């Protein structure tokens, strides 16, 4: 995967000079040492100086940028890459933020729906009341007696 990415980034620039290739490579690599995760082009430790020299040596020996990136990845591990490779377990690094975003939006939608939902109309059941009938009958009877 990393090789494919490297190839796609360098395929159209094969004819450019070594300076460009060095800039590309140091931009893709990071320091693992004193200034950890600092891009190689701004890292000034002795180890970073050695790495930049090694890149120059390998380019001068005719190695392609993607070969050099692969060498660094094999020698120092995936942590040396500015971007984690999009494959294997590290694919989660790329997927999880989107999964989190979708889950967050889904939760928000559900909560908002619940908050804005109108309460269902309550149907009042009007069952005939026996006591009301009795009262009415008694009232009428008493009124008749009064008359």
């Amino acid at each position, binding site marked *: 995967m990393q090789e494919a990415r490297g190839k796609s980034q360098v395929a159209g620039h094969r004819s450019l000079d070594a300076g460009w290739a060095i800039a590309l490579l140091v931009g893709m690599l990071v320091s*693992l040492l004193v200034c950890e995760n600092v891009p190689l082009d701004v890292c000034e430790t002795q180890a970073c100086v050695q790495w930049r020299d090694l890149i120059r040596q390998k380019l001068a020996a005719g190695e392609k940028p993607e070969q050099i990136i692969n060498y660094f990845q094999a020698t120092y591990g995936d942590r040396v890459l500015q971007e984690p490779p999009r494959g294997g377990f590290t694919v989660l690094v790329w997927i999880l933020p989107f999964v989190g975003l979708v889950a967050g939006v889904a939760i928000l939608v559900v909560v908002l729906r619940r908050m804005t939902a109108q309460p269902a109309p309550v149907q009042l059941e009007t069952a005939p009341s026996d006591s009301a009938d009795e009262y009415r009958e008694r009232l009428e009877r008493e009124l008749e007696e009064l008359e």
Partner: protein
Amino acid sequence: MSEVALRSTKKTGRSIWRVVALLAVAGLVMALALQLRARNATQPTSGVAPDFTLKMYPGYDGGLGKPEIRLADLRGQVVFVNFWASWCVPCRDEQPALEQVWRQYRSKGVVFVGVDYVDTEPAALKYLAEFGVSYPNGPDLGTKISPKYHIQGVPESFLVDRQGNIVLFKIAPINEAELVTALDHALAK
């Protein structure tokens, strides 16, 4: 399906999703906790030394006659594991003593193993030649060995006894007297 049954099915579905969501969150928390624990781990000072296989630099196999060396295969011998790098200034201070002690103890059942941490091969080979190092040495390929020992820099050294247990950890350059004392003690056990 009756309305009651439909409601019951919907309720069960919702419960399953809740359990799945809870398990996912618990898994995430667990993964973060393990990550944090691993990050805060320090160098082992006792117990079984983490096993590793080191692919040695050409010409730096210490006379073993094979390209790789595995710590577990050295059980029965006292092993001195030294993490170093050519760009490390303090490593240069201890290097002559290490080579001298190795030559003194190599016939007594002691093996020295140099693990080159985040280094470039040309610079490392130049360094090894400069100090005339003759014990097994190789790069920490893929930076896989150093995390097992949780080293924080170089030089750092570990002494492993015949049973494969760590008996000494040194975070700074080790001097000759200190190393000789530790080796004698380990050999006497």
